[in-house]
Each structure stands twice: as C-alpha cells, then as structure tokens.
C-alpha cells in the first residue's frame, strides 16, 4: 500500500468503486464529508485480547455476554473494528461454559466485530507457561484431536488455537484443526526449529507473541524465532507472528530485528488483560491475579509478565517509532496482516473496492479521531467535531 490523496466512497457498508458509479450508474455522492486531511486507514484487527475494562474473558461470570459487549464497545476508541476474544489456559468446565457465549458477529455501533475466539492453551509447555496456571495445563497424548475437542467442548466459534508443537501427536491435531479452518499458532513452547517447521508444514501459520514464552534465539538452533527466515515454509504460505509492541514485552531492538527479518509477517496484538483502561492495582487473568503498575503487568508478587494494558493504537504508534517504518507499514501490521493471517483480506483489513467499510480516521501522529464500521461512524474523538 502507499498513501494517496483520494476520496473514499462508501455504499451499503462496503467500499465503493467511484469510477464504476460514475460511468455505469451515472451516480454521484449523496453525502460528502470533509475529513479534514486525516489519514484514512482500514480498521485495526486485534487477534489476541484477553479482556479489558474489568472484564476477563477467561472468567465465567453471570453476565459474560455483557462483558464481551463492553470490551467490544470500548476498543472502538482504540481503532479496533474486529477482534478475537482470547481465553488463557483454563479448566475444561470454563471452556464449556464460556465458548458457547462467544458468537461470531459483525461490528457496528454496539462495538467491534467478533471474528471468533482465540484459545491460548491449555496444550502448552510447562516450562513456558508464563502467566498460565500450571494445574490446568494438558496434553493430547492419549486421544490427540478428540482430547482437544473434549477439553474445549465445541470449536464452532473458535478462530485460533495456540499450542506447543513439541507435544506428542501435535501434528495430527494441527492437521485436523487446519482442516476445519482454524488457524493454528505456535506459542508457550520449548520447540526447536525443526519441530516448529514440521508444525508449519502440517498447517500452523502463526506464532503467538514472538520472543515471549519460547526459547530465545540461538544461532545454532533459532527455535520458533527461526521460522521468520526458515526456508522450509511450504510454497505460497506465509508465517505470521504476533508482536506486543508496548515497549515492555519486547526490547525495541528485538522488535526491529524481527521486523527487518520478515516485515510482511508482523501482526500487532495487544494481549490486553482486564486491567486495560483501569487504574493501576490488582486484577484477574483467568485463574491468576495480576498486578498492574503503569504499563507493566505482572503475576502478583512475581516478575512474570502477564498480558499488557496497552491499547492497539498505542502499539501502532510505538511500533512505528521503534522501527522507523513508514506510516502505512505500521498501519498494515495492525490491519492487513491480521486479515491475511485469518484469510479474510478480501473483506477486511484493506480499503479495496467491495470490502467491508471498516475504517479509521487518524491524525498525522496516528491518534484515532473517528472509527467507522460498515460505513457508519461508531466512535469519534469529542474534540474532532464531525
């Protein structure tokens, strides 16, 4: 993409080709809005967000649905127009209770669209559990895919599953999930590069928060990080990797190394937790208690990072600053790349004709001024006045 000075045409919730309108239909605009020189970009897509504003997606409460609604509504102001509610490692009972309450739905004035759930765990490595509770970790040695299905209950509204590929029988599981159209992500794992490559060959396409909860890069065994430049990726496929660019999870230098090695695979995620948008202090993350101090979020009493409280637009700005990349590259990392990861770039993540009209108006410093879903303004900065 490259930025150009253009008019954006929208009709019935989709981006319209004005040339066709002009010549074929002899139509012209019914309403014209002056965007005051803002940058118009596709809406952000957050594929890893655990909750926010006091809501924890991994906690089964009576009003779980209104919790999801609250988060989906609040993140509009961060520029997020679609997201994947993420559940951390939890006991099966929680999945059985909560998953049926997450439904895939379009966004609108009520909030950002839900693309499906992201299940991060419980099939992850003990050594790299991070903030996930050890007693809930599981393996699928016995029944492979059936074990997974039994744990989660239903995969109907699941979009992404994060697992550790070094676990026995992971290849079968990855293949089965991929066959069902579910994106498989590698994370919270001690896999070496060949195990990771094998997982990719069986269908894995994503890496959950690169660098965090995996073996560090080593020059004789780069581990999962090596996927960024691996030559064993099947032709025509691309490995994407999530990065939490809040300035805490990854040193800016590491962020730059990853970006330079594989710029087209970088997907910005917030990995935000319930404390997002709230005052510092204690909050929950599934079965754990988390302490928030500024942008730092640790398991209470430890120095283990657990999620973040950064907003998506903060991540975009920090990413652009740290890497010095172009504005459009930073915006693509939060919109086009997640759309490509989920295979929905024909509908979302771009401003191409006939795609969903989910877009943002940003000022030059990349602060969101207004958010639009399906062509309707669903949020705007008060001072902006449009």
């Amino acid at each position: 993409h490259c930025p150009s000075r253009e008019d954006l045409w929208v009709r019935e919730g989709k981006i319209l080709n004005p040339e066709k309108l002009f010549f074929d239909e002899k139509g012209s605009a019914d309403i014209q809005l002056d965007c005051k020189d803002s940058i118009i970009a596709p809406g952000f897509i957050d594929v890893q967000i655990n909750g926010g504003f006091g809501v924890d997606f991994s906690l089964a409460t009576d009003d779980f649905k209104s919790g999801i609604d609250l988060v989906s509504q609040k993140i509009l102001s961060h520029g997020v127009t679609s997201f994947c509610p993420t559940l951390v490692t939890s006991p099966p009972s929680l999945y059985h209770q909560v998953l049926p309450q997450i439904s895939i739905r379009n966004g609108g004035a009520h909030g950002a669209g839900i693309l499906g759930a992201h299940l991060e765990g419980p099939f992850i490595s003990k050594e790299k559990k991070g903030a996930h509770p050890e007693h809930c970790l599981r393996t699928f040695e016995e029944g492979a895919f059936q074990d997974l299905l039994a744990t989660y209950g239903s995969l109907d509204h699941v979009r992404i599953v994060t697992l550790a590929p070094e676990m026995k029988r992971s290849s079968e599981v990855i293949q089965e999930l991929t066959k069902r159209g579910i994106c498989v992500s590698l994370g919270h794992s001690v896999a070496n590069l060949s195990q990771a490559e094998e997982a990719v060959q069986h269908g894995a396409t994503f890496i959950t928060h690169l660098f965090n909860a995996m073996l560090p890069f080593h020059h004789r065994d780069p581990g999962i990080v090596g996927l960024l430049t691996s030559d064993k990726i099947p032709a025509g496929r691309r490995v994407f990797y999530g990065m939490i660019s809040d300035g805490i999870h990854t040193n800016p230098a590491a962020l730059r190394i990853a970006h330079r090695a594989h710029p087209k695979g970088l997907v910005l995620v917030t990995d935000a937790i319930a404390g997002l948008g709230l005052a510092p202090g204690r909050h929950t993350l599934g079965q754990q208690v988390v302490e928030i101090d500024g942008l730092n979020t640790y398991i209470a009493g430890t120095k283990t990072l657990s999620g973040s409280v950064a907003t998506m637009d903060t991540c975009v700005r920090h990413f652009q600053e740290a890497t010095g990349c172009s504005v459009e590259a930073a915006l693509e990392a939060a919109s086009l790349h997640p759309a490509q990861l989920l295979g929905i770039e024909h509908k979302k993540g771009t401003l191409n004709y006939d795609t969903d009209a989910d877009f943002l108006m940003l000022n030059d410093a990349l602060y969101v001024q207004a958010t639009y879903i399906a062509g309707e303004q669903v949020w705007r900065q008060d001072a902006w006045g449009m």
Partner: protein
Amino acid sequence: MKLIILDTYAQASEWAAKYIRNRIVHFGPGPGRFFTLGLPTGLPREHPESYHSFMWNNFFKHIDISPENVHILDGNAPDLQAECDAFEDKIQAAGGIELFVGGIGPDGHIAFNEPGSSLVSRTRVKTLAMDTILANARFFDGDLSRVPTMALTVGVGTVMDAREVMILITGAHKAFALYKAIEEGVNHMWTVSAFQQHPNTVFVCDEDATLELKVKTVKYFKGLMLVHNKLVEPLYSMKEMGAEQSQAKKPYSD
C-alpha cells in the same frame, strides 16, 4: 493563431490550465448553459489504462461534474457508425463545442485523424497508423499485438466547428509536426494544419517543441507573451473582495 511558448512542460501545462479556467469562468456556465469542453478520444473501455479510467483518475474525480454531462464515445457499441452519428447529435444538442483541447501526434494528427484523413471529416471509425500504434504500445506493456488498430474519433471537421481550439504540443519529438502544422500549408497529411483556417486557435507548447520552427517565428510569438499572459490572469470574479481591482478582460482576439 496564438502561439504560446513556455520554457518547460510543467509551465506549458499550467498556462493551458489557467487559460481553460479563465474561459470557463468568463463563459459563466449554468443550468441549461453548458460550457462544452471537447477532448480527443482514446483506447477501448476494458483496459485498465482505458480512456475511462484515465479520464476518471486525471480529471473527473477532481471536479464536480455530473455524470450525465459526460459523453464518451463507446468503442464497444454494437453499431459503431450509429454511435458516431449520435455523438455528433449530442454535440449539437449541447450547443456545440465551446473549446476543444487536444494534442498533436508526431505525424501531425489531431485526435485520431491520421495522415490522409479528410479535413472536413466527422466523428467516425478510423484505422490507426503504425506511428500511433507504436505510440500507444506503452499502454499495453510494449506488446504491439495487443494495441487496438481501430478507434472512434471526432473528425477534423467536427473540431473545426468548435468555437475555439487549443492544441498542446510538448517535447522535441513533436517539433517537426508543429513545424508542418503552422509554417507549411494546409495539408491532409498533417491534419492539425487544418486549424490555420480556424478563427480562434491557440497552440501551447514548450521550448523543445519549437526546435523545428524558424527563429523568426519563435521570436515573434515570444515577444507577444506579455500580452498573452494577460489571458491567464485571475479574472475579477475570482479575486478576493477588497483586493486590488482590475477590469474583466474579454479574451484577446486576433
């Protein structure tokens, strides 16, 4: 004719644009009173570089013209000659062309009126000369086999009926054509020469396009630039209130 010589391509373009702007403002178009701008026709519809895309991206999307007021010859029409005849009728219906703006080919053609075209021709189907096909190859990735060999075009006679004609000529490769058009006789081998018999013609060119002209011709017209530049000054109706007033000038006539 008025021969306007500017130093560079950019300056020639700007002068031409301001001139057209002034003409439109001076004409004062309104509902039912059309300023009919004539432009030469181009390539077939479906090609990405097609005339429609070109006109949309370079012109229509930047102005507030109503789509009903845009008339483009349709190269995909079932009966091409009927399409051409209908086009002539539409021109009449709009009150005739007020200003026709065109370029010149290296072989001296106006629109697609190739060498040998009748100087009184009307809108019709034309077979393109090899020169034109070569020139158009750049729109088809240099693949000559894909360049259309026929086009619908307004005729020389059609353009002669316009109340004013502006021809833009830039670049050294057009120099010989310009020489033939204005310093030699009227000749159907260099169809632009027909405009020597039009009462209101403006040729706008850059320095390079004058390379084949007599030094005397170039000096004469450059000397007139002081007068000609008054044609592109902002008209009184376009100046701010309270700013220095100047009289509205009717276009200078030969």
